[in-house]
């Protein structure tokens, strides 16, 4: 009973936060709402006997990713979202997609509710950090290693993208910009000639 109440509490909170995230035009509001979703989901994970994942959820999503996002929002000092003007048709696309996904959700809900099979096993050790750790370093060692390489790569990628240009490169950029202008003119001449 308690868990059901808790679940609906957190579920309601998560959905409300999610809606608020989409609704708010201000990116920071969205971000804060999203953190709310993460926290709510983390609590739900606890009720699903997955404490490790619940904590990691907070640690990675709320503590790292969203902090980064908020950092970027603050750094770029973003203002409010403009309303859809040029791409008005996206409302229809979004509505359609949403409808399809909702129908699908209901379908899943209905299908799983109707499925005759009962849970395979309810005694839980799966979520304990020990069993997860064991799996991670035996059976799932390869994925973990891949994740390591991927994170390394992501670091390089991030650094490449945001690093300032070196002076030599900067000169090249300026040169190429001048070239480009020159070429544009040339191209125009050529078009006329043609």
């Amino acid at each position, binding site marked *: 009973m308690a868990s059901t109440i808790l679940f609906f509490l957190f579920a309601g909170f998560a959905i409300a936060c999610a809606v608020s995230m989409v609704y708010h035009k*201000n990116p*920071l*509001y969205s971000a*804060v709402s999203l*953190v709310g979703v993460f926290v709510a989901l983390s609590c739900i994970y606890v009720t699903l006997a997955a*404490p*490790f994942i619940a*904590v*990691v959820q*907070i*640690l990675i999503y*709320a*503590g*790292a990713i969203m*902090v*980064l996002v*908020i*950092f970027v*929002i*603050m*750094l770029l*000092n973003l203002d409010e979202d403009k309303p859809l003007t040029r791409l008005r048709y996206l409302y229809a696309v979004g509505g359609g997609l949403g409808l399809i996904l909702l129908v699908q959700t209901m379908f899943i809900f209905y299908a799983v509710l109707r499925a005759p099979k009962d849970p395979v096993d309810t005694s839980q050790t799966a979520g*304990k*950090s*020990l069993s997860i750790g064991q799996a991670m370093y035996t059976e799932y060692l390869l994925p973990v290693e891949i994740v390591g390489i991927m994170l390394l790569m992501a670091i390089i990628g991030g650094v490449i993208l945001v690093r300032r240009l070196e002076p030599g490169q900067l000169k090249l950029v300026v040169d190429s910009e001048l070239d480009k202008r020159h070429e544009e003119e040339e191209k125009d001449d050529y078009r006329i000639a043609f």
Partner: protein
Amino acid sequence: MESVLKTAFPFVVYTVGILLAFQGVLMIVAYTVLAERKVLGWIQGRIGPNRVGPWGVLQPFADLLKFILKEDLVPDKSTKFIYFLAPLVALTCALLPIVVYPFGPSITTVDWSFLPYGLGDGITRLPLTIAQIDVGVLFVLAITSVGVYGIALAGWSSNSKYSLMGGLRSSAQMISYELAMGASVLGVVMLAGTLDLNGIIYAQITSPFRWFIIPQIIGFVVFLIAAFAETNRVPFDLPEAETELVAGFHTEYSALKFALFFMAEYVNMFTVSVMCVVLFLGGWYVPGLGRIFEPGSIPYAAVSHVAFIGKICAFLFLYIWVRGTLPRFRFDQLMNFGWKFLLPVALGNVILTIVVVYFLNR
């Protein structure tokens, strides 16, 4: 009636426990503030607060009253909701780790059957921890990492350039030092083989020389430095560097909201001190105490608890001492130090630990 009582009893016990723990922590924090002013005073050859009560003992309460009674200014251009939310987030995140603090060893030798209505049936032990979860270390790290929101949001929502700078600095700093902190904890976790805080203490319990400060001295130093950064204390107090940013992220905060930030900072200090003690100094464990009292008995727990608080207080003193001694870093120095020195050292420590553990276990 009886069944209602039986259902309600654990909740009542928990509530009482939680209240007790929070009250205790807050009291200690309150007096840390006083102690800080006193100690700083001594360091600087002053006396410190001494007007409110004997030796200024009532100073914290006076401060509190002042905060409550002062006018609450809200900047006109601020983003109201988030402006109000930020201090709450900061304090909540600071207080949350209390639930996993191992205040002392669990009491196992007391028979609880004297309780009426059979409420004590089946209770064999009274843990001096509110929630024993097997990912305690991660939990603390996670909650601390969320704490940055309070500062960042405060900085952003105040709509002031100083606040924004403070917020930005703070998020950058916390993200950077969290890594080093996490990495420095890894060595301990590896040696202990568990993420449970009590488990880590039990792993150090055999002798004082198994305190992880000895095998993990590098980890300890890194953790300590990172902890200073995480709590925005001198010499890493850039988010609120008075001389540069007026007061950093809380420039625009006043009265009770400022008090919340203030409190959060000191609770955070307390939290990292607890972590230091638990991870490296054997937590509540007092060497040789098991010979005097029976483990699990009330006196054993009481003495351990006092020792625990004592160790924490030592760390709190260290914080104050450092504040009185060291100058502040520049921001780029801070980042360079974090990424180019602290993190590699912490990772090196992890690798070293892996190698040593592997060869020892062969």
